[in-house]
């Protein structure tokens, strides 16, 4: 349903050779991918590989230099209605939960923002109190959290609130930009279980940006390796061990140890 075609992105370099120079640094090179409805795509890469830039392209905040993003056959960046189409169907959860929520909002207002989006789209009023309670319940938090401020929650709880906010918009796709990387290992597993459960319950499509291979094998159907702005490998997770790509191999080998641990632990 979501398709990227030959995406190239570059930024103007901070340091120019000449005073009026126009040197640009290219971050993404001919990136193409395809996400089917109901699947989960993992995008894997080390720091500076262009993962987050790709995330920004995917959620409609950054127009690529060339190439096309298509959602259900409608080009996202070509027109205003294309962007609106994306905004209606896509929601996002960010890595850094400390800045994901407005510190002046209570939890019910944070989730309420997602509900507002849904109200605007559907043109009908929602029973906010009830919705917030059921959303909190959905992500496994007690209803009396609704009156708390973000600084009164732990990282895992706040990340759950952010997930609730993302789900509140009733999206079809949710983009996770390193959403669980900043949590500790135990909370990570809990949140991933929650995500798995939500995916089935609400029939969602996930795009998962991370540098952590373990979470991808745990959650995703397809995996895409990004190395220095280029797609080096794109295959189903089940065949990940057959990868021929050098970077992917290196990554796999470095993680194997943890992988074993994980299996022993589970």
């Amino acid at each position, binding site marked *: 349903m979501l398709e990227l075609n030959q995406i190239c992105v570059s930024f103007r370099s901070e340091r120019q050779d000449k005073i009026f120079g126009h040197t640009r640094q290219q971050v993404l090179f001919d990136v193409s991918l395809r996400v089917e409805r109901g699947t989960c795509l993992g995008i894997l890469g080390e720091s500076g590989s262009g993962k987050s830039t790709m995330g920004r392209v995917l*959620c*409609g*905040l950054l127009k690529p230099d060339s190439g096309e993003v298509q959602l259900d056959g409608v080009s996202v960046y070509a027109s205003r209605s294309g*962007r*609106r189409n994306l*905004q*209606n169907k*896509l*929601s*996002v959860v*960010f890595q*850094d939960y400390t*800045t*994901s*929520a*407005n*510190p*002046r*909002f209570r939890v019910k207002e*944070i989730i309420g*923002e*997602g509900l*507002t*989006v849904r109200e605007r789209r559907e043109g009908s009023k929602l029973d906010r109190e009830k919705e917030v309670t059921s959303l909190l319940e959905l992500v496994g938090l007690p209803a009396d959290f609704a009156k708390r*401020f973000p*600084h009164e929650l732990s990282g895992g709880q706040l990340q759950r609130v952010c997930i609730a*906010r*993302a789900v509140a*918009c009733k*999206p079809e796709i949710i983009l996770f930009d390193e959403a669980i990387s900043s949590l500790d290992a135990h909370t990570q597993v809990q949140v991933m279980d929650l995500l798995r459960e939500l995916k089935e319950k609400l029939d969602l499509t996930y795009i998962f940006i991370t540098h952590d291979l373990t979470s991808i094998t745990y959650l995703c159907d397809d995996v895409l390796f990004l190395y220095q702005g280029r797609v080096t490998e794109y295959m189903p997770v089940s065949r990940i061990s057959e990868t021929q790509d050098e970077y992917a191999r290196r990554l796999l080998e470095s993680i194997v140890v943890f992988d074993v641990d994980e299996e022993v632990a589970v």
Partner: protein
Amino acid sequence: MRERFFHNRTAVVTVLFVLIIAMIGILAPVLAPHDPYETDILNKFAEYSLEYPLGTDHLGRCVLSRLIYGIRPTLGLALLTMLGTIGLGALLGIMAGYFRGVVEEVIMRVVDVMLSFPSQIMVFAVVGLLGISVQNVIIANVFIKWAWYARMIRTGVMQYRDRNFVQFSRCVGMPERFILFRHLLPSITSDLAVLASLDVGWAIINISTLSFLGLGVQAPTPEWGAMLNEAKEVLTSNPIQMIAPGVAIVLLVCCFNLMGDALRDVLDPKEVEK
């Protein structure tokens, strides 16, 4: 927030003080012992007494009554100036900080030009050009000072515009209005509160300065700066005349400055409740 306010001693005291002053100003006709315009040339420079608690000035007018009536122009004009400056500064500052690009360039270059003039001289120039009257004083003050606030508010907004909660709002297509007024504006309220109360202090001094120089509120209207101006004439023979309006200005300005600091604590949700 209300709880935090009532637990902050400085905030309560300063706000109460300002409110009391404002009430006294509003109730001036009831509270003032004499008509502030009534002259009694035979009784000039009277000592402090029960009938004239703060004595009389060079025309024999009751200083206390003039002080009380003087609250109206002093505080009123200062608040008006503050609203104008902060309003204009906040609007342009938020726009410059959030929209970036051409909007920011245009606004900030205008700000740069405004800031390259010495502000006091510009106030004189504007008042001199437009003519001496109260509303021109306000226009001049707003005109000169908004650029300072636009710049500071822009910096505040820039800290928040790339925060994830703003990114989320943009990503799911919340209207710009919501982002500007529900996310960004509340995020900078603590900065705004400090700026606003400092600005009131500055405006009081500035209006008083202008009145002192004879460019602001005109005689015989009682205004604290104008009163100081009149007292200055007799500085050597009756220095006592300076005390009442001088102390009044210092107190009120100090109070506003303290209030700014206290309000910042109150408006910051992370301030732990003790």
